[in-house]
């Protein structure tokens, strides 16, 4: 069985999605358990694969039994094994947390909702494990389409935001497709490993540079890298809460993974460092992303939108780290990819819990929440600490490596931007905490409205989110600390082996 893990990672959720869809028509009550089983199996397979890859080295899996480059093959090394496990587990936890939210908000559409949810995860997992450049496009589109629908389901401005996302996302995906086409036309191959071999003699050709540029711009659009980020804040800000906490942590991270994969496995670091002369420019763009993301976030008066802009800044961290052109930066980028998925999940899920109870996430809705929802707020605080970069949460360590990478590259702008964005994050989150801590909750007439000291003594009823949301949230919050403490083995065993030797 273990040699089939790579296939199972993708098949089990796919089959589950189909069963969920059927159940949606016949027995809606079965949808959630089926989805749970499918993603649970995927998470188990992903974990098994990770263990296997760590034990025996990279795994190649031939779909249909055809050897690459004629057939499609998976190529799984440490990098995608860990990202796959991450995606599967975060999606599973979020699924558990989404149960109550979907039940309350979309009771009639449980079936299609979970179908698309599981399909989105399938697509992401497929993108992560695949070793075929074109296959990646198909899976990318699955994830994107499900994403458009899951976001567009939200009320208010969500459909418009989703349509904008669709336009930009389609341009991005098409650029990627075109880039793959360019690679195909100069090599005749679509398999990543094969491409890497065939491309080496072509370094220096204009077509190759164009292919690289187009592919990257396409991916940047998908990951909302500044200045191509315009779709993200609205899309994630207006998305239904369970959608936001699925896509915000995972989608951008998977795209960053794809970028790193393209950079190190299709093209090589030698190409990226020597042929592409705009590396510095990209890092400066990343700097702009961090600064702009942080400043835009400051202008928001809604928790979810604020978090969405933070995602924009975080993308800057990872892209910048990957483009610094040294081992430390790349290590930091990969480590941050892992940590950021968990911390973004944690804060977006906390926002989801808040929405579940207060039916809003604007700053006015947050008043008095430390009294009403202490556990949720504690988890939000943990996520905030990770985003700010306070040890021992994982966020500190990835920032640590990123800053060291910046120092080694002598890129002071990058270092400065990282610190600046950390400081702004302090302001951002403590602004939220101040509102939740100092301002009495508005709805409560017997206590609120008078100001002064007295109402603090009054007992505000505890109105915590349901346990099915709290437990995943707590798991995410604790996961952040666990990830931080596990940084040593993570870097030594997982990340360092996959950093290409060509990086200085």
């Amino acid at each position, binding site marked *: 069985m273990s040699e089939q893990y790579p296939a199972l990672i993708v098949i089990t959720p796919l089959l589950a999605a189909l069963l969920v869809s059927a159940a949606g028509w016949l027995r809606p009550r079965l949808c959630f358990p089926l989805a749970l089983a499918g993603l649970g199996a995927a998470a188990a397979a992903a974990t098994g694969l990770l263990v296997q890859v760590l034990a025996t080295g990279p795994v190649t899996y031939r779909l249909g039994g055809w050897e690459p480059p004629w057939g499609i093959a998976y190529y799984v090394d440490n990098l995608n094994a860990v990202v796959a496990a991450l995606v599967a587990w975060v999606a599973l936890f979020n699924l558990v947390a989404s149960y109550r939210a979907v039940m309350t908000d979309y009771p009639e559409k449980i079936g299609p909702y979970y179908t698309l949810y599981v399909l989105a995860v399938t697509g992401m997992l497929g993108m992560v494990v695949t070793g075929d450049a*074109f296959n990646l*496009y*198909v899976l990318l*589109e699955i994830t994107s*389409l499900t994403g*458009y*629908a899951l976001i*567009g389901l939200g009320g208010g*401005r969500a*459909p*418009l935001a*989703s*349509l904008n996302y*669709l*336009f930009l996302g*389609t*341009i991005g995906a*098409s650029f990627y*497709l*075109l880039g793959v*086409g360019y690679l*195909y*036309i100069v090599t005749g191959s*679509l398999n990543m490993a094969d491409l890497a071999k065939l491309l080496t003699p072509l370094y220096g050709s204009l077509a190759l540079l164009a292919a690289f540029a187009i592919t990257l711009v396409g991916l940047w659009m998908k990951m909302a890298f500044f200045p191509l980020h315009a779709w993200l804040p609205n899309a994630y800000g207006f998305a239904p809460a369970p959608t936001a906490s699925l896509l915000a942590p995972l989608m951008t991270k998977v795209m960053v993974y794809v970028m790193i994969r393209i950079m190190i496995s299709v093209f090589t670091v030698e190409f990226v460092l020597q042929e592409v002369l705009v590396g510095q420019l990209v890092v400066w763009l990343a700097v702009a992303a961090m600064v702009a993301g942080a400043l835009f976030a400051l202008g928001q008066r809604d928790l979810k939108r604020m978090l969405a802009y933070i995602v924009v800044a975080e993308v800057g961290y990872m892209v910048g780290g990957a483009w610094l052109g040294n081992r430390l930066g790349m290590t930091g980028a990969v480590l941050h990819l892992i940590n950021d998925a968990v911390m973004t999940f944690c804060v977006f899920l906390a926002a989801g819990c808040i929405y579940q109870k207060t039916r809003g996430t604007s700053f006015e809705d947050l008043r008095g929440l430390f009294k009403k929802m202490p556990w949720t707020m504690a988890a939000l605080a943990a996520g905030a600490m990770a985003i700010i970069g306070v040890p021992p949460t994982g966020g500190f360590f990835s920032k640590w490596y990123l800053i060291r990478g910046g120092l080694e590259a002598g890129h002071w702008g990058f270092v400065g931007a990282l610190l600046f964005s950390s400081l702004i994050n302090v302001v951002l989150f403590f602004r939220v905490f101040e509102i939740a801590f100092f301002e009495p909750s508005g709805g409560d007439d017997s206590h609120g409205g008078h100001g002064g000291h007295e109402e603090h003594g009054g007992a505000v009823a505890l109105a915590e989110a349901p346990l099915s949301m709290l437990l995943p949230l707590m798991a995410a919050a604790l996961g952040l600390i666990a990830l931080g403490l596990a940084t040593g083995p993570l870097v030594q065993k997982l990340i360092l082996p996959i950093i290409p030797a060509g990086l200085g």
Partner: protein
Amino acid sequence: MEEYIPLLLTKYNYWVYITLMMIGLWAMIAKNNLVKKIVGMNIFQTAIILFYVSIGAKYGGTIPIIQHGPGHGHGAAQIKALAYINPLPHVLMLTAIVVSVATLGVALALVIKIHRRHRTLEEDEILEQLRES
């Protein structure tokens, strides 16, 4: 100037696709009506499909269906790759066509939802409404 003429003639497939693609891109960015943007998106995607399909062409090649009739491997030795055009881009583009249709479907569904709420599909009017509210 003269050295560019063969370039123009031998690579005209690329000029066509780039022109089409830019038309689509222009429409997506500059057009105000959401449905026109979707039309632009379709042109954009179709241009890429055209590009891929044109890769597959070979002088002297016919459609990629083996012409010896059905059989289990008999006479396979006579099949020459040069006689048939490259099937792979066609396969890939079948996928891309399906993707573009699916995207179109979802986009139209979103447009209907937007129309339900804003009663218009002109982007500036929608933004106007959003500013007012």
